[in-house]
Structures are given as C-alpha cells and as structure tokens.
C-alpha cells in the first residue's frame, strides 16, 4: 500500500504518532496543522484518505470537512475524524458535516489501519 494519507492535527505529538503508525504501515504521509492549512495542502496533493482532528485553531475539523465536501474535486475523498473518546455528539456532528468514519484516540495502530482500509477505495 503506497497510498497517500493527509493528516490534519494541530498537535505535533499526534502528528508524529500518526506519521509513525502510518509510515510503518506503508503509507505515504503528508501533514497539515489545522483546517486552513489542510485546504492549502489539498490544492497541491490528492490524498487517498484524510485523517483530521476536530479541535483545531483557525479552522476546526467540522469546518474543514464541510469545505472539503463542498469542493467537487475532493468530495469523494474519505475523511476519518479523530475523536478523543467515543464522543457521540462530536462524532454525529462530524458525520453530518460529511466525515466518512472516525478513529478513537488514543488509537491502536491495527485499528487505525483497519479504519483506513474500510474507507480507502
């Protein structure tokens, strides 16, 4: 699997962890620090899957997902949201915004990859 994954998270720790887990699983990882930055990166890259945090400065995960879904070019890109616990309300909000699935933090690499497999075309 050499698919490209875009991770959007304001926490360096989380970005580093995602990068480690995803690179180990053979993915190519590109990163962004918040929603706006994520949209920037999307202008240059077409990732197979996007993983995004919800609570971020400048543009949060909900805004980011909505913006991605509004763009015809990216509406079919699967988006997984990172939720800290199984926060139903945020999960539902993210789904309404157009999230494809979710990953519960702290994530287990095996489950992370299985979540990606379930959404990656």
């Amino acid at each position, binding site marked *: 699997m050499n698919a490209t994954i875009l991770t959007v998270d304001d926490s360096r720790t989380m970005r580093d962890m995602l990068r480690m887990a995803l690179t180990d699983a053979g993915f190519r990882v590109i990163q962004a620090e918040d929603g706006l930055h994520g949209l920037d990166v999307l202008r240059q890259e077409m990732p197979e899957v996007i993983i995004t945090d919800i609570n971020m400065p400048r543009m949060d995960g909900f805004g980011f997902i909505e913006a991605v879904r509004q763009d015809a*070019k990216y509406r079919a890109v699967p988006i997984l949201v990172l939720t800290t616990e199984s926060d139903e309300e945020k999960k539902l909000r993210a789904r309404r915004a157009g999230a494809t699935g979710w990953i519960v933090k702290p994530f287990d690499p095996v489950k992370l990859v299985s979540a990606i497999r379930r959404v990656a075309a």
Partner: protein
Amino acid sequence: MDPMAEIRLTFFQECEEQLTALENGLLGMQEGSADSELVNAVFRAVHSIKGGAGAFKLNTLVSFAHVFETALDKVRSGSIVPDADAMKLFLRAADALSDLVSASRDGAVLDTAPYAAIEEEFDALLGGAGGAAEDDDFQSLDFQPVTTAFSGEDAAPEATTAPARSSFLIRFRPLRELFAKANDPLALFRELTRLGRLQAQCDIKNLPFLDTMEPEDSYLSWELRLESDCDIAAVKEVFDFVDGDCDLSIEVGLPAQPAVMAAAPEASGPPPRIVQDGQADVAVPPPSVAPLPAPAEAEAAAQPKASARTAVQPTIRVDLDRVDRLINLVGELVINQAMLTQRVLHSSHVRDREVTSSLEELERLTREIQESVMAIRAQPVRPLFQRMSRIVREVADATGKDVRLRTEGEATEVDKTVVELLADPLTHMIRNAVDHGLETPEQRIAAGKAPEGTVRLAAAHRSGRVIIEVSDDGAGINRPRVLQKAIANGLVPPDSQLNDSEIDNLLFLPGFSTAQSISNISGRGVGMDVVKRSIQALGGRISIASSPGQGSTFTLSLPLTLAVLDGIVVTVDEQTFVIPLTAIVETVKHEQSRIHHVGEHSFVLRVRDVLVPLIDVGAELGVRPPANQVRSGVAILIETANGSRSALLVDNIQDQRQVVIKSLETNYKRVDGIAAATILGDGRVAMILDVDALVGLRHHDWSSTEIPFAKAS
C-alpha cells in the same frame, strides 16, 4: 533515540506550549474577554494535553485533564457561565495540570489528593454526579500502547485455523448519504473478505435508464454471504461507519454450506459475482462535475495560501549549542573586522576612498550580522511573566489577600540566559510585593482603597537595556520601621541620619528582614540582598522608589545580552583595560587641590563636595607599585552595584566601544578585579574590569590599614 521516546519528548515540549496557551487564555477570560476563540483555545490546550497523555498511558494526567476539559466544554457551550470563583478554580486547575505534566515527565510519584480535591470541585461545578460517572467510565479505558510493530496484513485473521465457522447473511442497501460521505461499498466488502469467504450478489433491478439516472443517487443493493469464524460484532464493526446511511440486516447461524453459491442465485439477474467496480462509478462523480482547475484558477487558489503562510510564523528548532557557536564566530568576525580596519587605515591604502568606504560597509554589515545573531538568543519575557501570575495566586491564597497581577510589555525580548537567571530574583520580588507590599483587604478598605491590590510587572527596552519594574499599590515602605530594624540589627549606627532613599536601600543589606515573623512566603532564607546580587551577576542594577500609602516600585535595569558589553577602553601603564559603561557615572578632573591624602597609598577625591576613594587601577591590580603621590591621568567616577561611588585612576581614555566578552575563567583562570577579557581591534587582549570587585579589594585594604574613611572628612 527510539521514535517513541522522541515523540514523548515532543509531547512534553508541546505540553509546555499548551500550558502557556491555557494560562494566557484563562487570564484573558478573567480579564473579562468574551472572545469565544479564547475559550476555544483554552479548551483545545487541555484537550490536546489529554490526547497526547492518553497515547502514553499517563492515566492520572488523562483523567484530570478530562474533568477539566468537560468543565471547559460546558463553558464553551454556554451552559456554565464562568464567574470569579469558577475562574479561580480553572486557574488552580491549570496550575495543577502543569504540576501533573511535570510529574509525568519526570516519572515522579504523585500525591493525588490535591488533584482529587480539584476534581471534586469540578464535579460540584458541573452539578453533581454526571461528570464523575463519565469520568470513571473514561478511566476504565485500557489504552493500547502504540509501539506495536505491525504491517497491514498481520491484522487478517487466519481463516484456516477457525474451529467453528458460521455463516452470515448480510442484506445491504446503501443510501445516497453513504456516498455523500465518501464511503465505498467496495472497501466494506473487501474488509469483509478479510474475515472469511465472501460471496456477493448485486441487485440491479432498481437501476434506472441512463437518461433518468441521478448520478449521485444510490440504486444498487447487495446480498452477501460470509463464512467466517468471527462473531457478529466483528461483522457489524465493518459497517460501523455506514450505520444510518444504509439499510442493513445481518442474520447469523445459517449452517455453513459448501454450496452457498448454488443456494444463492434466486434472483433472475446476472449470476452472482464478487462485485468489482460496478458501484464505484456511482460513488465517484463523473469528471464533468469535477473539472481540474484551469491554470488561472490554480494561480488564484495559490494566493490565499501565501497569506495563510504569513499568518502562522514558521519556526525551526535549533540546538542552543549551534546558536552559541554562531554567536562566538560572529564575535570573532567583529574582532577580525576591527583589526582589518585598523591595519588598512594604518597602511598606505588610507587615501583610497573606495577602500575606506568598503571597510565602512563591512563594519556596518558585521554589526548588523552581530545584532541579528544576538536576536536569535533573544526571547520574550512573556513565559517568565506568566510564571509570576501563578506565584501571585499562591501567595495571595496563603496570605488571604486579593491580588490582581497586571503585566505590560510581555513581548519585550531579552537574552535567553538573562530570562532564565531572572526567574528566581523576580519570583522573590513578586512574593515580597504581595506578602510585604500589599495590605490585607481590611487594611486597604480602612485606608480608602479598593480591597483588591494590584501588582504590576512591566518590561520595556530603554537605551539599550531592558527595564523591568515590579510595583505594588500597597502601603509603601515603612521607613521608620526599616530604620529601627536596621539599627536594632546593628546595620547602621543608632544616631544615623539617613534620607529616604538611603533608608530604602537598607532593604538590600544582607540579613535584613522587615516581616513581623518569618512568613513561609517570602522568608525562605533569601533576602533582597540575594536578589540584588543575582541581578548584579547579570550585569544589572536594581533600585527602589516608594511613597507612603501609594506603594513601592522596584526597577531592574538589565543588559540585552551577556555576550557583548559597552565599555570605555583605558590605558594603565601601557596595559589596556575596559571599564563597563554601565558602571561609569562621569569622568572628572583630578587637580591636586581636589585630592586628599588619607594614609599610606590612600587618597580621596573631592567631587562636588563629596569625597570618594580614588583607586589607582594599576597599583590595585599589581601592574605597578603603589605610589605616595597621585599620578597624573584621568579619574573615572564609577558607581558600584550597591550604589557606593569611587573614582578609578587611569592614565588615559582611548575609546568607547562595544566589546565581545571572552570568559577569562574558561580560557585561563579567575582573577580578582577582572570580570572577563576581550580582544581589541589591534589584536591585543584587554581585561574587562570588575568594578565592584575592584572597589571591594580596596575596602579590604582599608580595613587592614585601619584608616576609616570617615576620618578624612
């Protein structure tokens, strides 16, 4: 370093940043800012710490952050309005969180009682058991360590070893919402094949003709048969993400038949097959809907990107060693440039205007490089000031005083080392300001003041130095009491007539304490004398201004950097010395009529009717023997850090310039009276005088020769 250790390091670095953001935000909220982004930032900080902590199984930290975060979330959603008490709780929680982070980082054993107490207060704030139950639930989560090595394939169960295989009949009809969220039935089916043997049959009977087909609608449904040893939960989990976006039924327990294939085709459609691309065309909008941006469009799209970049200042992290090496090299460059200039100007090229203007340009550039490099080490005092707000809270709590800390000029930048070394003295001064400076609320009300006292902490750049002021609006220094105490302690003679400023400066004498009892706040065995010495060690000065009933202000004046120093280059018996400019008051004429002989090799100089010791630098440092007659030369009036004045006698003044400080201790050894060395433009080494030590040496001499200064006047 192993990658996890590295990420752990990143996590704790990030925690520091988040804690700073947290405290900033909370203070902003306390100031009454209604900015919702502020609350968001506060929430995010705690949330982010919790997220990282979870990954490292720092469960105490996680559960505390969780309770904190829950409360902040309620503030964010507006269901809690943070009153003054709530804000105090938040600030205390932020302090506790900071302690927890430190303890987690150092692996320290924790006394959980204070955290439990704060958690209880949060529960009360949240209105009872709701939060607590959720919390217990959360704590029971077992965090998986993320160090597990894996490859994508390892996760697949081994179907062949399955003892009890069961069969599942899955009826699946995706709705258009499923596709709108970019879910893809194919990916789900592929995932099912990992659980066991899968057969899928697609029902296309609802598929309309092409001309009436809505490309984003869903027309297909599937009947899937899965033979697997996994339980139904595993099958359901595959469909987790599409729950609610499809019609789904899963039947279990059908006997596993080898001839599922034969049983399946009841529909009259095409023969069953493992679905491949059929529905992918439906999921992905046709190309016409998603045109690639035209070049012009792409360019336009690139525009906001540039502005987004400038919004977030990019930074890099560099080892301090590298910066210091660079600073050192630039120091050498400055010296070299000065030498070059001097040599060229002394040679025959002197009339060549191009050469001289090039040299001037080189000097300007060198200086600019030096300033830029120094700026790398410069850091805003903000983090330091923020630490002080915690000190204020702690002392205010312990003394029962109402205190507000006002900070100004937090963006003022100072050398990193100065910032670090300033922490202790500043902490002590802040403690003093709250403990000794401010009155109790009752006393304040009696004095007609607001019950809440204010401590102000301000930083500013002023004429090449950093000025830091710590002031309070308390009762001011109780001068009669200070004097009484100083007399009682034998620090000054009983009949001393001291002016206000002299009395104020008694506070800096070793062993002075005005507190009625040694409180556990300020009196930690450290007096203002230690504060003063720490400031002096940084090349700084401290002064007091106080007015009764209105408060006191302590002013620190500090150098911007410890690497360069402004000094006056002087000659003594053909040796070159540098006197730090900060110590110099003025140069004075030393006519014989103004000089008084007060003993063997001892002289005083009269400067505007005040007698000051006249110190022959050459004799003091052993460059030449002491003389009984005052030599000709120049007297430089200096003020030591404790405010006493002396005159230094040198042969002549060469220049005033900035010099790069080279440690004498690391390159040679410590020498009394010498602070450091430097290399001058002509390549010669010059000693930088330690003015305070020089005067100290002198005092020592006097006591040994028993000629008290008082007798001379």
